[in-house]
């Protein structure tokens, strides 16, 4: 039923089938009504005409309430009744104005609150569902789900701007676009046996040498002190090493310790999924199963599902 949508008939986007009125819409409607009302009042001669119109307008707004079951609605109706006969004829013009907006304001506030509450409830329901259910990865489809979610989100935004899926890049901000270009220009990071190739070793060495301070005066001093400063590989002074100050040694030790600490952060501990099926009798067995899953999981997914089901699918 199309009546189930939260669309105000006077909303300017009412013709859009996907539009749902929010408090912004109601504000716009109210302002439009006010403007129209003022316009009418300025046209029509005097007060008598104004009061009738003022009665008429709130009634227009109320028929929409038929779509919600509201407790506060009837008491507001009874509330507004005594208001109506009150304002005297003279201050119809300015009396009606704040009265209208106050009633409207109340109505709009309540409505906004309800919408807000509805929205929040929905979000909470979704979150709780996600939390309560164990991550239903069911062996290997979580990444697909993430991709689908992302596509859906982008799809919504695209529809809002009237774009096509192929023009998805138009949603990127300038910074995001620049980062993408940088990523394209960079070579992909090496993995597997190639991790310590020439280039990465060189980069790692470069990075570590950045921390070393270049002390040009000490360098010059050493140059003066040592006659054979520019010795080459086959120099006869092979065994002699200069006196090294303690703080240099300290710095070196500290750097080694920092590197050690950094090494620990290269692989993270995964969360233990205790809702997952137990398929090992042992810790060693569990470790083995993890390794096997990593290697062959994606190939045996179908077979596993068939076994679980009991029969194979006729594909």
């Amino acid at each position, binding site marked *: 039923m199309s009546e189930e949508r939260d669309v105000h008939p006077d909303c300017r986007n009412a013709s859009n089938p996907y539009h749902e009125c929010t408090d912004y819409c109601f504000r716009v409607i109210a302002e439009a009504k006010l403007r129209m009302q003022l316009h009418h009042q300025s046209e029509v001669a005097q007060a008598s005409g104004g009061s009738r119109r003022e009665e008429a307008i709130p009634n227009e707004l109320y028929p929409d309430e038929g779509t919600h079951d509201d407790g506060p609605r009837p008491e507001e109706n009874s509330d507004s009744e005594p208001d109506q006969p009150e304002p005297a004829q003279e201050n119809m013009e300015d009396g009606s104005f704040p009265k209208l907006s106050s009633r409207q304001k109340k109505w709009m506030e309540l409505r906004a609150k309800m919408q807000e509450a509805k929205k929040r409830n929905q979000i909470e329901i979704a979150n709780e569902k996600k939390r309560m259910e164990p991550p239903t990865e069911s062996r290997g489809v979580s990444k697909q789900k993430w991709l689908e979610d992302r596509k859906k989100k982008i799809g919504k935004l695209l529809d809002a701007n009237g774009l096509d899926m192929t023009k998805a890049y138009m949603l990127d901000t300038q910074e995001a676009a620049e980062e993408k270009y940088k990523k394209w220009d960079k070579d992909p990071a090496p993995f597997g046996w190639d991790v310590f190739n*020439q*280039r990465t*070793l060189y980069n790692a060495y470069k990075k*570590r040498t950045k921390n070393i301070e270049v002390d040009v005066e000490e360098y010059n001093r050493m140059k003066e002190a040592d006659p054979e400063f520019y010795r080459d590989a086959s120099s006869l002074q092979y065994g002699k090493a200069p006196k090294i100050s303690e703080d240099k*040694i300290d710095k070196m030790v500290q*750097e080694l310790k920092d590197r050690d600490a950094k090494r620990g952060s290269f692989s993270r501990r995964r969360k233990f999924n205790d809702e997952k099926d*137990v398929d090992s*009798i042992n810790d060693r067995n569990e470790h083995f199963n993890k390794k096997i899953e990593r290697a062959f999981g994606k190939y045996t997914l179908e077979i596993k599902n068939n076994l679980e089901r009991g029969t194979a699918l006729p594909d």
Partner: protein
Amino acid sequence: MRICGGAKNKNYGPIQITAEQIVREARELEEIHRHRPPKQKINDGTELGEYRLRKRKEFEDLIRRVGWNVKVWVKYAEWEESQKDFDRARSVWERVLEVDYKNHTLWLKYAEFEMKNRFINHARNVWHRAITLLPRVDQLWYKYIHMENMLGNVVGVRRIFEMWMEWMPERHAWLSYIKFELKYKEIQHARDLFERFVLCHPTVASWIRYAKFEINNGDACSTRNVFERALDKVVAAEDDEEAHKFFVAFADFEASCNETHRAECIYQFALHHHVPKGINC
């Protein structure tokens, strides 16, 4: 009636059990029946000695069993290091190097052990042995150089770099040496190094690198000299992509010297000899 070999009653049993249940029970029973030795605190020297004896026996048994597995050796050596018994640790490292000297990670870990515990000359010995035995493993060279650099022993660094360059290593090694010289502003040295570099790696990229260095650190005359020498090599090289880059670099340099006529000549020459794609005059 005795049922041997074939069950007569082929109905389902009244109580069924799933495989998962069996496995779960196995897991839980294992927890229950696991007997760990009681946690003991070490109170004095004799207890410490006993603990160490026990651990050493375990480690020695382990390496007797799986001597081919480097990990157990490393664990043994690191445990000795943690017990601050450096001579024993050294002996363990030497034993494992007897087993497998080709494993560069062993050398790295051994040298790091010496460095972390401030035995600089020991570390130097280890590094020197490592680079003598495994000269083509760049990591060893880099780390040795880095150690001497951290210690401020510039002479030592230069010596190691010279030893390395004798082996004609990859481009990156040369570049790191040149960077080191440039850090201390030894321009003439760097120039000599670049000469050797383009001899060792006579590619267009190396020449471009040399030329860029001259643009940054030299005068126009020497730069032009470099470009002209490179020209013959580039023409002979027949590598269009690199040649394209070279010509563009050369022409840019001439343009920056306000020698537009020469720049034009270069472009003409380039177009005449090669047909590079997308060159923009």
